[in-house]
């Protein structure tokens, strides 16, 4: 995928990961893109808590299984302090049940550990270009979670997730049936990039509750 469409010319990446082989893998992969830079690395939650929010990174790669804390808590912290940054979950398996929780905590996508250099670069490019990876099972879970949320939203604005648009529902349904973005675009008569945007929006909708909470908490503490 071409890296264009509003991407910053130099993407700054921050890795939060305790496995040094993954650090080496990321460093190796970044050799493919000399204009990208790994601006920081934390091997523990406690280190990341202090260092990561102060980094100027555009993309954060976050491992969910940190030795001294939960990746989800780190995602929440980053979604508060770095609301414009892309937060990619770095996971060995596409463990969708846990991924949904991570997305609710503010993640905007995920990358499977074990992918090759090109796949990592492509995933980062995709997320920066406004797209997001999604599996059929994840789509199914999101459909279940976000479908018909409108009445609940009226009842309780603070806790309900936002409702899906008709087009988003269609996209999600097709993803859940195993169709890839190109096929979905063809079936719906829209561009592939639009499909990606829809999926990205879904992620944001899923995390909006968390973000609202985070912003409110930040305001209460005088941080914003």
């Amino acid at each position, binding site marked *: 995928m071409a890296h264009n469409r509003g991407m910053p010319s130099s993407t700054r990446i921050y890795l939060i990961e305790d496995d040094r082989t993954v650090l080496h893998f990321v460093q190796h992969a970044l050799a493919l893109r000399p204009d990208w830079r790994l601006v920081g690395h934390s091997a523990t939650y406690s280190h990341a808590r202090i260092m990561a929010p102060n980094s100027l990174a555009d993309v954060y790669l976050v491992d969910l299984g940190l030795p001294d804390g939960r990746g989800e808590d780190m995602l929440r912290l980053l979604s508060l302090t770095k609301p414009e940054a892309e937060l990619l979950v770095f996971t060995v*398996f596409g463990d969708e049940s846990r991924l949904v929780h991570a997305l609710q905590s503010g993640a905007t996508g995920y990358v499977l550990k*074990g992918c090759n250099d090109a796949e990592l670069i492509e995933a980062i490019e995709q997320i920066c270009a406004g797209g997001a990876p999604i*599996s*059929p*099972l994840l789509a*199914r879970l999101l459909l279940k979670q976000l479908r018909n949320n409108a009445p609940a939203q009226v009842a309780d604005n603070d806790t309900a997730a936002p409702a899906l648009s008709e087009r988003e529902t269609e996209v999600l349904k097709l993803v859940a049936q*195993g169709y*890839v973005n190109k096929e979905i675009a063809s079936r719906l008569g829209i561009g592939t990039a639009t499909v990606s945007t829809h999926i990205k929006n879904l992620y944001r909708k899923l995390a909006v509750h968390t973000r609202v909470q985070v912003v409110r908490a930040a305001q209460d503490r005088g941080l914003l």
Partner: protein
Amino acid sequence: MPPAPPPPGQNAKRVPHYLWVGLLLLGLLWALHSVSMPAGLENAVTLREAQASLPQHPQQPPQQVSLPHILDDQPAAWSGWVDYRLDWPAALHYDDPAQTRLALLLPRVGTRFRVLLNGHEIYQVGWYAAPERNILSAWFPYLVSLPPQLLQAQPQQNQIHIQVQGQLLERSGLWPLQIGYHGSLFERHQVLEVWQVKGTWMMLISSLLMGLLSLHLWRTLNERLFLLMAVAALAHSVRLALSVSLEPPLSFGWYFYLHRLAFTWYVGFFLLFVAELLAFRDRLVHGLAWFLIGVGPFWLAWTLHTQDYDLYRIWAGAMAVCGALSLLRLLLFKARQRDALDGDQILVLVVATFTLATGVRDFLVVQLNFPGDADLRWTSLGSLALLFTLSWVLAQRATASTREVHRLNQSLAGILAKREAELRQAFDQLRASEQQRAIEGERRRLMRDMHDGLGSQLVQTLNMVRSQKHTLDAGSVESMIHHALEELRLMLDSLEPMEGDLATILGTFRQRIEPALLAAGIELDWQVQDVPALPSLDAQGVMHLFRCMQEIFANVVKHAQARRVCVRTRSDAAHVYLTVTDDGVGMQRPHTKPQAQRGLGNLRARAGKLGARVRFFDAHPGTGIEFAFPIHRTFTPEAGDTVPSVE
């Protein structure tokens, strides 16, 4: 209906009720004895003698008589009109008659009488009523004030006459009376009113209530005991009602007959009741009771006919003897048996003994003139105590069945709760063991999958690394490890909550397989649509399906020489269909390699475990495989070993 046994342990530490009731009655007897001691009143004098004369027989000389002077004990001439002249007691004197408030207290006098002071009539009851009228003044005490203006200046000069018209069989006459200051006698009169009149009314009401209640219980429970009590209590009520009437609406003959017969039947039926209550089926007791009930009417009729009070006196004695004998026999018989009586039965015996004692005392004092206050009849109190006790016992008895039902209900509820708890526990155990079995099954499946898939993949990789130490191809190792990782991911995918959604399961599989297909230059034509959820596709089912799809796609990649594979889903009312077709060389059965044959065999076996029918067909060109999953599961996994036929 046998009396319900008290719940075990309920009375274990309590003092039995008959014990404290017995003590209470002993105290009452002592109190009665104290109250009934013949004692002089303050500011009053008891007159125990009088000079009696017969105005209708002037030839009969007046004679000094001691009181009580009962006309039934006198010759026939005395049953008419008797004049008693009372001497003014020397102890009673006054200074100024106008300032003196004196009175006479007549505890028992009758059956008709009048009082004259110095020749002036100052009080009368029924004196001028027609002879056929039945006047019974003797049931009531009278307080007669002596008008001050009629008193003589010298007390000894006063002439007091009490004239009585007697009635045979009614123990008419004059009983000892008091003369004295009005205040003292008024109080004494109040006491006598309570004992003789109000007490009788109380008994009448209680007895009537008890009779009606017993009658109702008998009709409801159909138990003979209640009928006996009802007859006894109602007979007693009749007697009491006649005892508080100054002028009963009956001739004296009927009044006497009914009054005495009611008492006789009361005693007779009461004895039967006690025998029934104590479950004492004794011929003598029953014989005595039925003797009183049966012979009573004739004996009383004979008494009425002969007008001989001694006959009634004999009958009253007979009743007392029958009652005492029955109670004594009952006590002796039960005393020989250990635990023969329950608490309530002992209570009734204790109270009945008390009642009998009061009756005997009254008989001795009133009939045989033993020392004591004959104006205070103990029987009233004795009967009242007995009535209350019997009411309590009967109420206990009547509610025993209800309590028994309640107890049984409680016991039943307890047993039910226990059984329910046992059932729940058994169910919980069953569920736990079922859960354990499921976990075990799942663990075995995962182990098998890991052994067959990931394990063998890793072993292959290890063997390759070992055997090609010096010529190790990094690409091959990477590919094999990647394959192992994919295998692991596939296994973990099967554990995701897919809820039997075939489209999502296939989509997930596509994610894993598509890179390999693309690498092999095979295009995937995805024609999957939503179909009804399939109950057979649980975690194990998903893994079976993954393995089937792996087998199919492996065949396509390795043997079919296909360029395009189409995956399609559809459904009808009964089945969901999954079809995979390729445009390869098609099936060449005679030349199919043994490995591929084995693969197809595995495919059929796994499809069987999913409860699916599998069909191979020629796709012109290429091969097609169709799985037909029943929408409603009628298949047991154990039956899945049956290999479906191959078309």
